Structures are given as C-alpha cells and as structure tokens.
C-alpha cells in the first residue's frame, strides 16, 4: 500500500469509527456460496421460460429446469453439441420426416417430488401452445414460441413417449427443443394455479432449486441432490445471482470482494482486474457482430462492389486491439474452423486499396462517396462495445469513400425493429442495421436471415434479401436429416453468401467473464450457455 493510501485509509477509519460503524467483515458462513453478478437489470422470469435473452436461460433456465434436449457444455475445446435431457432418445419417422418420437427419461422427479412423464410434458406444451388451457401463460408463450418455428402438433403415445408433428420437414427441430423448459404441473396446482406465485416457488427438474427470490435484487439457488444426472449435482452449497446492469458496478463489486464472478466486465478494467489476481475467462462462441444490409430499392448495398468494398475497408485487427483482444475477426457468419464455413472465393480482409478500386469500378470516388444510414444501439445483449466499434468502422469506411450516418437507438427500440424490417417507418430509412446474434443452429445462423420467406414480418430477414439459390440451399439443408450431408449443403450456402458479401462481417465475441481466484472448476464452453453445476468455491 502506498503512503497516501495509508493516510487516506487512516483518515477514513477515524471518520467512520467515530460514527460507530464496524469495519469488520461480515463473518464468513460455513457453507460455500458462489455470488454471480449478471448484466440484466432484474431477475429473469423463473416460471420456466425465462426472459432477458440467453442470460436468462443461462442462469435461471438451465439451472432450475431441463429441456428434452440439452447442450453438452462440458468441453471448452470443441463446439457444443446436443445431448439427451428429459428425453433419453429421439428419432424421426423415415416415412414422414415431419413426425418425431421422443422417449422420455424415467425415474425423474420435479423438485416438489411429483413425477416427470408424458402427461407432464403435454401439460407443459399446452401451457405454451393452447390458449384455452387453464395453465396457458402468455408471458412464457411469448418468450419461447418464436424459438420453435416448426412446432405443429403433439400427442402422448404412452406414459414415457410423446410425438411431435412439425409443420414441415425440419432436421433442426431438436435444436429448437433446447429452448422448451418443463415446469411442474403439481407445483402450479399447489400454489393456487397462479404463475406469479409459481415464480417465487418454482419447481423444475434441473440441478438447482430456487430457494429465495427477491425481485430486482437477488435469486438464491441451492443444489438439487436428487438430480437425475449424478455428474451434474452442484458442487457449491448456494449460488446467489445478482442483477447489475452497469459494467463498472460489476467490476467494482468483484474487485471489492462483494461477488465472485461477473459477466461481461468493462474491457478497460481488465488489466486492473488481472493485476488484482482475478481470472479472466473467454472463449469464442457462436456469436456474430455484423451490419445486415437493406436490399430495398435505392439501397447502395444492392451493388456487390459496394458490399465487398465495405468488407475490405474494415481493419478488424485494429478493432481487436481497441477491444483489448476480446474479439475474433469475422470473415463469415461462422468461423473458418466450423463445418459450415465452406470454401469461399472472396477473402474478407483489410485491403483499402482494393476497396477503393471496387468503388471506382461502380462509379464512386472522392467527389461521389457512397452515403448510407445505419441503425445502431448504445448498448445491448451481445452488442459488445457498440459505440466505440461503430465509430471505428465509420472512420475505416470513410477512408475508402463510404460515408455512414448513424441513427442511434436504445437497445429496446433497435431489437424489436429487427423483425419489422428495413421498409418499416421505425427503420427511419436506414440502409443497414447493427444487431449481433447467436448461431447455435442452422435456423438461427442462416435461415431466419437469408431465406426470402423470412422477410418482415415473418423473420429477421431485415433487408428483404431474396436469392432463389439461397432459398434452394437452405430448404435442402433443412430437409437433409443426415448431419454430414447437411453440413455440406450448409457449407456450400455459406461460401456463396461470403462470395456475395451479403453482409458486412465484423467480429465474433469471446464472452469475457472475470472471476475471483477462489472460483474453481469452471469450463467455459463454446456456447452462449454455461454450466455452473461443476463450479466450486475454495475456502
């Protein structure tokens, strides 16, 4: 400690001691407690289908509940795959590929002791899809229905078998089911058939039970010792989840020992945290930070030379340095090591001279720049550091002759605009939108953005991109049930999309987290979701 520090400390000690306040730390209890600061401003919904995006699923979804199909989050090295959850196995009917049969796991009970079986599964599906059922919950339906676009009919085959019929053949259906979490029908009855009461006393089948919920302040989870997967019984006695939307507050809370783990630390504070002995974990995961172009009449992005020039104008290494190394330069929607990347002929790189040449070829030059308007946000889930990054890109593009004017919206306005599309008045005439996203499965990665049927208001094809070859390849991939063959089709699609410079590809996030050295056993999977069950706290 430096001398001024010492004097300051003594001075403050005298002042506060005079006020009769004790400086002694709150005595540590015998139980091990893991305290996590989340980025959300409230505790995500605890009734089964969480809100607050994927952070809600990460901390109050997959902790209290299970899905039929789960993500395998045990490896930090390989891309996360699917693994059986509340279903032990599933198969698609070869004669009618719309029909899926799921065999449910036996000997599983909800936290309240009631059994998990086909009746409980169907009851949960009615909760989401049948507006006339007593257990229907509009909030949960709103949170999950959009994530399972192929859901058609469902029925019980026997006590441990259920059957789904999708609206069309969809090889990606099991991925979508990872978002459907199952709550206890018996507990809902026990709390008076009231979802608000259920939120405070929820019951799922997950590795954790919710012991205490104080809205906007904290959720406390304790282990479910009877969890069906013995390898995932939690190793800490208690997990306390605290909402802290402000990055600097989270950083200060970690450095002062109030929490053990923070999500998304402020990048400029990372050297300080490292010097204080904190562990910074990161791992690339399925995330892309792009500009999605408008292909409406009058948009300069309709010219492939302009799209390619923009992709060649961005100095991604410089951007990476700006972010303290906490990004991976994007040269496609997926990363080059991914099976869907393919072999594109157009190499996305930093080459401003080639960018200027392409613009000149299309008649643009110093006296005639390209003028575009882009919707950006000030913050938001997965948006990384949107203002700094966009200003950097604006400078890069101006250097080659593309002038960007920003329409800055708050995240809560920009995000809903995604589905409304470029032609909607709320887009304010913009030619591109800057919304980052997760590509956990092919539907989320490509289909919802680039299939012509997904143009507003059906999906996230914001710019009304329409290419018959894209549609053909995506439809083919969706109906190819052999994974290897499906990967080949997706690789062909992705290569074509990169060759067309369909979007401006900028960055992939690496999901930085900062932790006290006491946190042990955390494996950061290449995924939006993480498993906190194996995490322990050293005394």
């Amino acid at each position, binding site marked *: 400690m430096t001398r001024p*520090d010492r004097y300051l400390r003594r001075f403050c000690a005298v002042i506060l001691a005079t006020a009769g*306040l004790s400086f002694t730390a709150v005595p540590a209890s015998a139980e091990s407690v893991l305290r996590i600061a989340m980025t959300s401003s409230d505790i995500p919904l605890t009734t089964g289908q969480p809100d607050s995006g994927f952070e809600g699923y990460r901390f109050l979804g997959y902790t209290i509940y299970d899905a039929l199909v789960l993500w395998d989050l045990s490896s930090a090295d390989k891309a996360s795959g699917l693994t059986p959850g509340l279903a032990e196995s599933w198969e698609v009917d070869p004669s009618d590929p719309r029909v899926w049969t799921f065999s449910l796991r036996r000997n599983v009970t909800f936290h309240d002791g009631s059994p998990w079986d086909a009746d409980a599964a169907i009851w949960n599906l009615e909760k989401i899809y049948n507006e006339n059922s007593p257990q229907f919950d509009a909030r949960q339906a*709103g949170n999950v229905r*959009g994530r399972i676009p192929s859901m058609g009919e469902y029925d019980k085959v026997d006590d441990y078998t259920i059957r789904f019929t999708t609206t069309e053949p969809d090889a990606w259906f099991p991925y979508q089911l990872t978002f459907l979490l199952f709550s206890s029908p018996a507990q809902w009855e026990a709390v008076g058939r009231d979802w*608000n009461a259920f939120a405070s006393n929820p019951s799922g089948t997950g590795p954790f039970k919710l012991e*205490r919920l104080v809205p*906007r302040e904290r959720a406390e989870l304790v282990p479910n010792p009877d969890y069906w997967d013995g390898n995932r019984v939690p190793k800490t006695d208690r997990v306390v989840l605290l909402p802290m939307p402000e990055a600097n507050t989270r950083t200060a809370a970690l450095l002062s020992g109030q929490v053990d783990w923070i999500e998304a630390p402020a990048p400029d504070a990372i050297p300080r945290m490292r010097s204080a002995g904190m562990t910074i974990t990161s791992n690339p995961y399925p995330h892309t930070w792009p500009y999605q172009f408008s292909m409406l009449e009058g948009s300069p992005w309709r010219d492939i030379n302009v799209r390619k020039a923009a992709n060649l104008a961005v100095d991604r290494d410089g951007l990476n340095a700006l972010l303290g190394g906490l990004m991976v330069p994007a040269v496609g929607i997926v990363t080059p090591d991914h099976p869907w990347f393919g072999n594109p002929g157009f190499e996305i790189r930093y080459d401003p001279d080639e960018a200027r040449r392409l613009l000149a070829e299309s008649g643009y030059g110093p006296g005639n720049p390209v003028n575009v308007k882009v919707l950006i946000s000030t913050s938001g889930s997965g948006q990384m550091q949107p203002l700094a990054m966009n200003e950097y890109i604006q400078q890069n593009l101006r250097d080659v002759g593309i002038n960007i004017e920003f329409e800055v919206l708050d995240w809560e306005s920009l995000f809903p605009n995604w589905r409304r599309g470029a032609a909607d008045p709320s887009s304010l005439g913009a030619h591109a939108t800057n919304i980052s996203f997760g590509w956990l499965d092919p539907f989320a990665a490509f289909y919802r953005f680039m299939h012509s049927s997904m143009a507003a208001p059906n999906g996230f094809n914001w710019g009304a991109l329409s290419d018959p070859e894209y549609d053909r390849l995506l439809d083919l991939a969706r109906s190819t049930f052999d994974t290897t063959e499906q990967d080949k089709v997706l690789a062909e699609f992705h290569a074509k999309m990169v060759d067309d410079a369909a979007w401006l590809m900028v960055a992939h996030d690496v999901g930085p987290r900062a932790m006290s050295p006491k946190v042990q056993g955390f494996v950061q999977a290449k995924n939006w979701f993480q498993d906190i069950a194996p995490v322990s706290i050293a005394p």
Partner: protein
Amino acid sequence: MLTYFSKRLLFMVPITLAVSLICFSLVHLSPGQPMDAVVSADAPAEVVELVRRAYGFDRPLPVQFGLWVQRAVQGDLGLSVATGRPVVLEVMGALKNTLILATAAALIGFPLGMLFGTLAGYFKGSLLDRLLTGIAVTGVSVPHYWLGMVLVIVFSVHLNMLPATGAGPGASTDWAFEAAYLRHLILPAVTLSVIPMGIMTRTIRAMVGEILAHDFVEALRAKGLPEWRVFLHVVKNAAPTALAVMGLQLGYLLGGSILVETVFSWPGTGMLLNNAIFRRDLPLLQGTILVLALFFLALNLLVDLAQTWLDPRIKRA
C-alpha cells in the same frame, strides 16, 4: 387555513391526472411498444398479437387510460407487464429503499448546506465564503454518476473499506438499522447529498446576505445586542426559505436518484423507473410516477403549512 388545506388537496386531483396522462402519452410517443418487454424479438406476429390481447394493449389508447384511472382510484395500479407482479407492491418496496437513501442523504446534505450557507452568508466576501461557495458550486456541478464511480474506486476498490453495491449483505427486505447495512448506505448517501448540499448552501448564503442588509439587523446591533444573538435572529429569519428549499430537495431526492441508484445497484424507485423505461413497462412506469408525484405534492403541502407555522407573516387564506 382549513380552506387553504382543502383547496390544495383538491388541486392535487387534476395535477395527478395530468401527470399520469403526460406519462402515458410519452410512453406511447417514444419508440418501441409496451409489449417489447414481454415478447422476445423472435416471437412471430400472431404471438405478439396474442400477448397484446392478453394484456389489453389491443384496446384504443383512451380506453386503456380510462381503465387505468378507474383502477388507480381504487388503489389498484395493475400488474407489471415485465414481471407480472403487482405494481403497488413493486413501488412500495422500492419507495421504502429510496426513503432510507433519501433520508440519509438529507441528513448529510441539509445540515452541511445550512452550516455552509449561513457561514458563507455571514462572512460574505471572506476567504471562508469563497471556500464554502466553491464547495457548493462543485457539489452542484459534479455529475452524480462520476462522483459515485470515483467514491467506489477509492473506498471500495482501492481501499476495500466500504461495499460498492447493493442495499446490504442480504436483500433490502432484510434491511435493519445495523452496521452491516449502514456500511452499504454510506457511499450512495454521500453521493446523493452533494447536490442538495450545494443548493442549500447557495440559497441560504443569498438569504443570509439579504437579511443582514435589513434595517432590523442594524437596529439590533445599535441596541447593543451581542453578535451571536444577532446571528440567531438572522438564522431564524432564513428558516422559512431553508425549509422550502429542503422540501423541494427532499422531493428531488425521492424521485431523482436514477443514476445514483443504478451505479450502486440500490433497489429504489430510481432503479425501478430506469427498468420500467427501458423495458417499456407502462403500468410500472405510470404507477411509480403517480406515487412519486403524490409524494412530491404531499411534501410540498406539508412544507407550505410548516412555513406558515414558522413565519406568521406568510398568510395562507
């Protein structure tokens, strides 16, 4: 006095209605829709429509407002769109936390402001005056947000003496008047106190300066009254103004601590409003603003009555 009191109470009705209507209109004029809080962006149009119906947002705006007013007069502020919890419970829980913070800030800011203002006014033009006025101007000018972060960096991160965030080691529902919780109160209360302290200092300084120029002060001195007795007379004459400023500042402290509560994750009305604005949670926003507006009006009324009691020259008829 009774007529005045009744009149003021009656005035509260149109004011409250106007506040609610303005709040309701602003939410609908701003980009985004109330349903954005509930429905994820992935949700297809029919699901959005379904949820809009379930929450009654498909009705014409005047009908929505009318229904809300009808329920509000019966004490039912509805349910939060984002959380489904009753707005009354949300607001009351948060109000308790904000009252704790505002009281602590007032206990720091008001006495200091009165002391600094009186001294600066009494010794106008002196070095002490310049020093205290400098502190006051700094207090008014420094952004809350920045000061809060600096205090956290110094006292929490650097010196590890005080907690950086939260209302206590447990939840605010467990709040107790004991050291473990009071430690959490110090930094946000100090941060929040600097603006009222600065405003009080400047107002009282001006008031004391003005009173000192009055003939009666000259007369008191000419009669040979000791200077400390003269000082007491001056302070007494400045009291009604000080009280009015305190009332206003207390009102601002209750409603205007969004930034401080966010920086310190203090679960009060400021943070509640912040959440409600960003999540377009219309019932929560309207309910919180209504309760704060009523609180502010009631506080003003109390201050006005107290002023009359303190200073008989002020007639309220």
